């Protein structure tokens, strides 16, 4: 069986989610090819070729894929699908945007955000905000799958490099035009792959309040997340949102500060190994379900926590 993994990348860097998707693909006992499409995609193709388990990289270096819009991307993937039984992509904004278009043209059901490969046609995926795990059997002629990247480890670097083969751009009608983007590059680890995440909610009260979390994130090399309420209020950018309709995270340590712990928030962080709640309300679900709960005012304890962590590091 051959699997095509559609790579995610930005600024010439292959995403960590792609390396995790390759791991999921390898669990199918398959030959795994990676498709890298973009403008000046060669550098990304080389990063993909260096990953263990990759048989071949198909590289489409063309300005038509500069922003990887869904219409041309789907056309490109479809132009290769006579060679593959499965197409997989990370469940990132790009993967979620593009793959259903591919599935519709193939007229097959897609599996979104699988968390486990049980066998070559059986998968697990969360539904109902992660409160139920569905075992799904797919006997579709071609399987179209997005992967919950937190559920798989990234494939390691290989000692050698897989061949990179150029593929031609595919014909696609001009339906959408890129206008602009406003993307903030952060030096912190990615939310989806960070070992430690500290998230703030409405209780943090302001963008200013998030500075307290940033200081702790600096001490712990943590990613910063947020609840929907904190994002809606404009304290932090939209892509900080953890939850059912935001990002899924699964760090070793998740610190929820001033977050009540609604179903939709838990949906995004329930696979964290250790959850810490810092909240004034001892009745709220976050405190009730966390592994360690500190019932206190965040403005009192965060500076203390920062200091304690700094001391720990010094020792």
């Amino acid at each position, binding site marked *: 069986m051959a699997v095509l993994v559609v790579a995610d990348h930005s600024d010439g860097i292959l995403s960590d989610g792609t390396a995790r998707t390759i791991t999921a693909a390898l669990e199918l006992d398959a030959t795994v090819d990676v498709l890298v499409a973009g403008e000046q995609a060669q550098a990304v193709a080389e990063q993909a070729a260096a990953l263990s388990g990759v048989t071949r990289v198909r590289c489409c270096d063309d300005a038509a894929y500069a922003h990887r819009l869904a219409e041309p991307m789907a056309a490109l993937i479809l132009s290769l699908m006579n060679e593959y039984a499965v197409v997989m992509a990370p469940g990132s904004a790009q993967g979620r945007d593009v793959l259903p278009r591919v599935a519709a043209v193939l007229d097959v059901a897609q599996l979104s955000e699988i968390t486990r490969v049980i066998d070559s046609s059986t998968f697990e995926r969360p539904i109902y905000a992660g409160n139920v795990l569905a075992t799904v059997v797919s006997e579709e002629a071609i399987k179209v799958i997005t992967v919950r990247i937190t559920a798989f480890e990234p494939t390691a670097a290989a000692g050698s490099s897989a061949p990179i083969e150029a593929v031609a751009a595919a014909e696609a009608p001009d339906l959408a035009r890129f*206008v602009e983007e406003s993307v903030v590059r952060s030096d912190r680890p990615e939310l989806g792959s960070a070992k430690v995440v500290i998230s703030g909610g409405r209780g943090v009260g302001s963008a200013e309040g998030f500075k307290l979390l940033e200081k702790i994130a600096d001490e712990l090399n943590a990613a910063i997340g947020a609840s929907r309420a904190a994002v809606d209020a404009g304290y932090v950018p939209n892509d900080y949102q953890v939850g059912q309709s935001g990002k899924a995270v699964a760090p070793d340590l998740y610190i929820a500060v001033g977050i009540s712990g609604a179903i939709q928030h838990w949906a995004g962080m329930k696979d964290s190994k250790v959850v*810490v709640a810092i909240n004034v309300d001892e009745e709220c679900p976050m405190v009730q379900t966390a592994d360690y709960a500190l019932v206190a005012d965040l403005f009192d304890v965060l500076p203390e926590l920062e200091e304690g962590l700094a001391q*720990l590091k010094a020792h």
Partner: protein
Amino acid sequence: MKILVTVKRAVDYTVRVRPLTDGSGVDIANAKMSMNPFDEIALEQAVQFKEAGLADEIVAVSIGDSGSQDVLRSALAFGADRALLIQTDSVLEPVAVSRILAKIATDEAPHLVLMGKQAIDDDASQTPQMLAARMGWAQGTFACGLSMGEGEVSVIREVDGGTQTLALTLPAVVSVDLRLNEPRYLKLPDIMKAKRKPLEVQTVEELGVDVSTKTRITHFAEPPEREPGVRVQSVSELIDRLVNEAKVL
């Protein structure tokens, strides 16, 4: 301009759904049902376009059992002009829903289809993209901003790292995200008025669309429970436990 809005009836977002003990399904027989929250946002956007004189007709469509008439009545109360229920007792895969919607989009010929970015039951986030592909139309997923132009719609999308703006040629499909707007509260006079608006019901069989797929859920399980946690009294106790007990620092 004509706008088609899709509305799905789903378990209310406040309900914590559990699987049936034998794993054969989910325990929602008596659960509170509501309009999928993302679809309310799609409707609100459609109504705002109409109020701004940019749209003249809003058609709401739902695919589901007879209970879906409730969410269509709400859609009419929001401001949709007429509603269409494609009735089925089966739970359909998004790809099957997209076949039905493609038939309706072909018949109705809207300029814009507004949909939710995901249904909060299956969390699939597929149907809008699938409809766009079937129609050969542009798509703008995860929209947090929308504005109408000459023959096109401009969409601000929430993507990894921030936002992206696209201009889509009409007709197009847009799937909306949480921050696009805040849906209005329905007022009693609007709810009363909605009772007199047309709601047409057709079965999937009457429509003549094949809704079969080769995908099925064979088991519904509860995710692993967390061990009960502990209450710590101080920051130093917290750090101590994270270092020595949980070993995560």
